[in-house]
């Protein structure tokens, strides 16, 4: 019986068996469609070549037999395309390692594939707050960081992209300062070219900071309205008058670019959805983040989730594009046995980073030439920044009310390690400008 995880190894074995034929092709694409069934895509000119047709048919017949029920009948098992780019268009495509000319095109029902890592965005540093599980104090940490950065004179733009569980804006803004619209409204209005009308009414400034400024763009406006109906439309691609298509994540990037032009922030803090989710994929991989904070609680759920993600980056060949931007954050570190808890969490993080993201240093080679860290190396992204659990933040009704009251000493006690770590990254970024 063939199941999903057998598809790639099996098809690779078949290609190996037909290597002589495969090697002479300009390119070959193994296409895994939305129903996880496999077809081969080959150059269009092959359709007219009798000699190669019989070799192709032999391969496709084997695909039919060996891949069932994840294959097609041989008569319907081949697609022809003019170019490799056309064959891979719209798919998450990776090269099959042992072949120079064979690609695996994975078609996904969602657009976020977690493996197209955008280059770092020019302009203000974008810092993404991500966690595998919700309820780990991400929003509170973001709010504290925004406050500290603003107090140091920075212009801080905060985006609530936790669209399916919104609420960050209520943490940073009292009710009477909530703007009329939010990101969800813009994504819907943009589909009918109406985004420009509402953009001015979706930004609010916080009254928490006396020195710099915190600009907040919430997930929804003062009145969420028909939020469920709007949320179900934010994923829509937009078709422009010239027929060009812009997926929702590209539209979101356009929104952020517009906001950046309007506000001219020094830093952009982005609250991501938790988990392996469509919005989170966009936040972590598409928005050109300088830094992705991986909030973690030491436990099998956390590491199991990050393992899936790191493994995916490994398989997709994008490890070198993403690993430098990651930073583990030990969230809600308990007061009891604090140090041994942090040691355990660091160990858990290190195990994953060294298995999937760090380079192995070949014997005799200097480690400094590689992305390689020891467990105790503070420079490694596995080495956690700390957010301490604090009773003052547990079960507060409004984070805004709590932040109004908090003094600097208390803020530093809870968030000091995180603040220093992120400020350092932002300073480096700013000194590059």
């Amino acid at each position, binding site marked *: 019986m063939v199941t999903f995880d057998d598809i790639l190894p099996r098809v690779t074995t078949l290609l190996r068996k037909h290597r002589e034929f495969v090697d002479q092709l300009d390119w070959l694409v193994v296409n895994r469609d939305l129903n996880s069934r496999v077809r081969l895509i080959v150059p269009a000119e092959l359709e007219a070549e009798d000699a190669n047709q019989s070799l192709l048919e032999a391969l496709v017949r084997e695909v039919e037999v060996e891949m069932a029920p994840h294959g097609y009948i041989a008569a319907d098992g081949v697609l022809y395309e003019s170019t490799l780019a056309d064959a891979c268009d719209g798919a998450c495509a990776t090269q099959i390692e042992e072949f120079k000319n064979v690609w695996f095109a994975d078609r996904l029902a969602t657009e976020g594939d977690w493996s197209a890592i955008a280059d770092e965005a020019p302009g203000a540093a974008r810092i993404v707050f991500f966690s595998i599980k919700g309820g780990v104090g991400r929003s509170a940490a973001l709010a504290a960081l925004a406050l500290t950065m603003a107090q140091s004179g920075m212009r801080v733009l905060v985006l609530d992209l936790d669209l399916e569980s919104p609420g960050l804006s209520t943490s940073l803004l009292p009710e009477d300062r909530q703007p009329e619209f939010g990101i969800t409204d813009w994504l819907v209005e943009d589909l009918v070219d109406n985004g420009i009308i509402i953009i001015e009414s979706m930004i609010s400034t916080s009254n928490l900071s006396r020195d710099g400024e915190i600009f907040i763009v919430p997930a929804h406006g003062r009145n969420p309205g028909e939020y469920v109906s709007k949320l179900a439309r934010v994923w829509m691609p937009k*078709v422009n*008058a010239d027929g060009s298509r812009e997926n929702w994540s590209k539209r979101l990037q356009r929104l952020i670019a517009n906001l950046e032009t309007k506000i001219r922030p020094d830093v952009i803090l982005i609250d991501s959805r938790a988990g392996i989710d469509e919005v989170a994929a966009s936040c972590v991989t598409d928005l050109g983040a300088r830094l992705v904070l991986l909030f973690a609680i030491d436990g099998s759920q956390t590491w199991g989730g990050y393992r899936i993600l790191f493994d995916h980056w490994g398989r997709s060949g994008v490890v070198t594009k993403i690993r430098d931007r990651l930073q583990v954050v030990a969230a809600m570190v308990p007061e009891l046995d604090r140090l041994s808890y942090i040691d355990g969490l660091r160990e858990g993080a290190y195990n994953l980073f060294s298995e999937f993201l760090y380079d192995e240093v070949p014997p005799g080679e200097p480690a400094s030439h590689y992305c390689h860290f020891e467990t105790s190396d503070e420079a490694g992204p596995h080495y956690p920044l700390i957010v301490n659990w604090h009773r003052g933040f547990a079960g507060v009704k409004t984070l805004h009310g709590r932040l109004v009251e908090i003094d600097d000493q208390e803020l530093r006690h809870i968030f000091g390690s995180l603040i220093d770590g992120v400020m350092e990254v932002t300073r480096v970024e700013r000194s590059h400008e």
Partner: protein
Amino acid sequence: MQSDFFDSHNRHLSDARRLYGLQRWANADHLFGLAAECGLKRLMIAFGIKTDNDGTPEGKYKIHINKLWSEYEAVRTGHSQGVRYTLSPTNPFHRWDISDRYGSQSNFDQKRVDQHRLGAEEVDRLIKQARKDGLL
């Protein structure tokens, strides 16, 4: 005869391209329109519209491409599988008419056909996408 809109899309488009290459503008124009119609009908069936026994779309969709382009949009957005199968908002076939086949070929030139050729190629891209996605 049972309808096969996938096959008929492909053959109309293939013949239209040949005629276009030979500057046979009038019949190329006719076939680009039919190719686009068959392609969209095939996609609409894949999205779930009902068909008669002979495989043709039911009542309200028995229309040609000058009207079908907008109807397709309404069907597509009502079906979850249609979300990514977007067409340009402006119908390139709004001046195309099935009865143009009775007109004199002096009424047809490359400029007129090009608009319809691009529309048919746009539909063909969706057909190819549907094949790769496993929808067809």
